């Protein structure tokens, strides 16, 4: 964007394209360009006149949209803290759990995993391998057994062993599958009944390459298990994850963690400033 060149229609068109390509979606793009607090209005008011001002104006607007009181993970007043992990198929739940456990271990916590995906082929084996690499315990159940019972066993063992944090893995499920969403809701209820205040976090794992369907996912999962935060995965690819703005605005769900690879260290806290800057790189 030309530093001293005057802002023009072409600049707005180029910004619009960039926002689309970043998965902002037509409604959000419309709002950001043509809305009351949008670029065109600011241009008309004389708030922005040069091309280099446009990007700065937009970035500060976007950063403000992502400002949230608390991006940290909630802790229980006394152990165990319980995290429930859910999301659509293949988004990166199991791998994110391993990475999250790794972070918590580095912070000096005793961590336990519950392999409550009792359905998918080798789901338990997959999480078990991670638990072995991490040197931590894992609670499992019979194949096709009730996932809520595995979550339940997880809590019992967490209490017995003085565990600081229990992380519950669940099977991938489409938000459109009523039975599976009911099953997930039941897992959460079992945790809540067993431990008042649990789960301290119900984290929705969203695939960073998803388009507008991520908004539907967030909506339904929020309704069923009151999602408290999002883990946005696969941002080490070329997708930008622009859908989080609509999710943040409409559903007020903050992104708390970002997946940037397939290994244990590849999970970082969400940084709105960095995230917005990366959108335009």
């Amino acid at each position, binding site marked *: 964007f030309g530093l001293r060149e005057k802002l023009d229609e072409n600049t707005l068109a180029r910004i619009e394209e960039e926002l689309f*390509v970043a998965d902002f*979606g*037509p409604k959000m793009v419309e709002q950001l360009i043509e809305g009351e607090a949008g670029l065109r209005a600011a241009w008309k008011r004389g708030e922005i006149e040069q091309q280099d001002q446009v990007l700065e104006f937009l970035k500060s607007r976007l950063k403000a949209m992502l400002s949230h009181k608390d991006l940290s993970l909630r802790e229980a007043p006394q152990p165990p803290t319980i995290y429930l992990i859910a999301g659509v198929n*293949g988004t990166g739940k199991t791998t994110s759990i391993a990475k999250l456990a790794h972070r918590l271990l580095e912070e000096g916590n005793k961590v336990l995993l519950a392999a409550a995906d009792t359905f998918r082929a080798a789901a338990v*084996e997959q999480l078990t*391998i991670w638990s072995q690499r991490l040197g931590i315990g894992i609670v499992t159940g019979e194949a096709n057994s009730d996932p809520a019972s595995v979550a339940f066993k997880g809590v019992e063992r967490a209490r017995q062993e003085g565990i600081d944090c229990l992380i519950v893995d669940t099977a991938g499920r489409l938000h459109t599958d009523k039975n599976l969403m009911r099953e997930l809701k039941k897992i959460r209820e079992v945790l809540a009944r067993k431990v008042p205040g649990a789960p301290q976090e119900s984290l929705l794992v969203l695939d960073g390459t998803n388009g507008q369907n*991520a908004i539907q996912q967030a909506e339904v999962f929020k309704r069923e298990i009151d999602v408290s935060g999002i883990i946005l995965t696969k941002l080490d690819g*070329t997708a930008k994850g622009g859908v989080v703005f609509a999710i943040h605005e409409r559903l007020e769900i903050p992104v708390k963690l970002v997946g940037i690879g397939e290994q244990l260290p590849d999970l970082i806290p969400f940084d709105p400033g960095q995230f917005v800057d990366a959108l335009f790189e």
Partner: protein
Amino acid sequence: SLTRRFSDIWGRLRNRKITAGNVQETLRDIRVALLEADVALPVVKDFLVKVEQKALGEEVLKGVNPGQQFVETVYRELAELMGPVDSRIPAVKPGPTIILMAGLQGSGKTTTCAKLALLLKKQGRRPLLVAADIQRPAAIDQLKILGAQIGAPVFSEADIKPPQICQHAIRHARENDLDPVILDTAGRLHIDEEMMREVKEVAHLAQPHEIFLVVDAMVGQDAVRSARDFNEQLELTGVILTKLDGDARGGAALSVKSITGKPIKFAGVGEKVEGGLEEFRPEGMAQRILG
């Protein structure tokens, strides 16, 4: 829905001819619908140009509401762009026929390998599944369990790399009269040079007759970037779109077809292997994308 919106706009028009002026407003509506459906922006632009040319070139048929006719034109153009479909996997002589599955992480490759094997078993073939993903924890277990579920043998070998695993598997298939050979590979980023080099080496040594790009139907604008890169690095022969049992509009279908020119052959429509794979239907997909 788009159809109702079109009828409203066109209901107000009295002209017999679809003109450049009255087409513009409708094109804007189509643009929004396609972007909402996750069709990639450059693909949307190309599509609108095509549709505008088609619409302007048509004479409104007597007795037909011009809005309805325009909608028909749009659906037809969309369906035609995503077709035709030929999902046959012919038995190559001398065999075995070799199929390679590739794609981004979590797109559904491993499950799709088993689904395809089951489909082919039902057609009287004797497929061999090959566990060539040696990095994802329990990937080999996953394919073995799925193979056991459908009664298809699974080849795996320790201590060697994916290209060699595939070579040995093909030799095993030849010796045991198994056909086709379905190679499951690790999910990988199209921008990961080392991993793209690995899958190219697999393709170079295995010489597949079919190379499928497995794409998650929920993928957004990024579909064009990853599909283009995979297509440049591998000689894709087809695409399989998965998780169509969800409510993603699936604009990636048009994006991937447009950018690669490669046919979408199958649709993943469920988590279960049984009944989880169908032949891709462009008309159904066109309706879904336009909402």
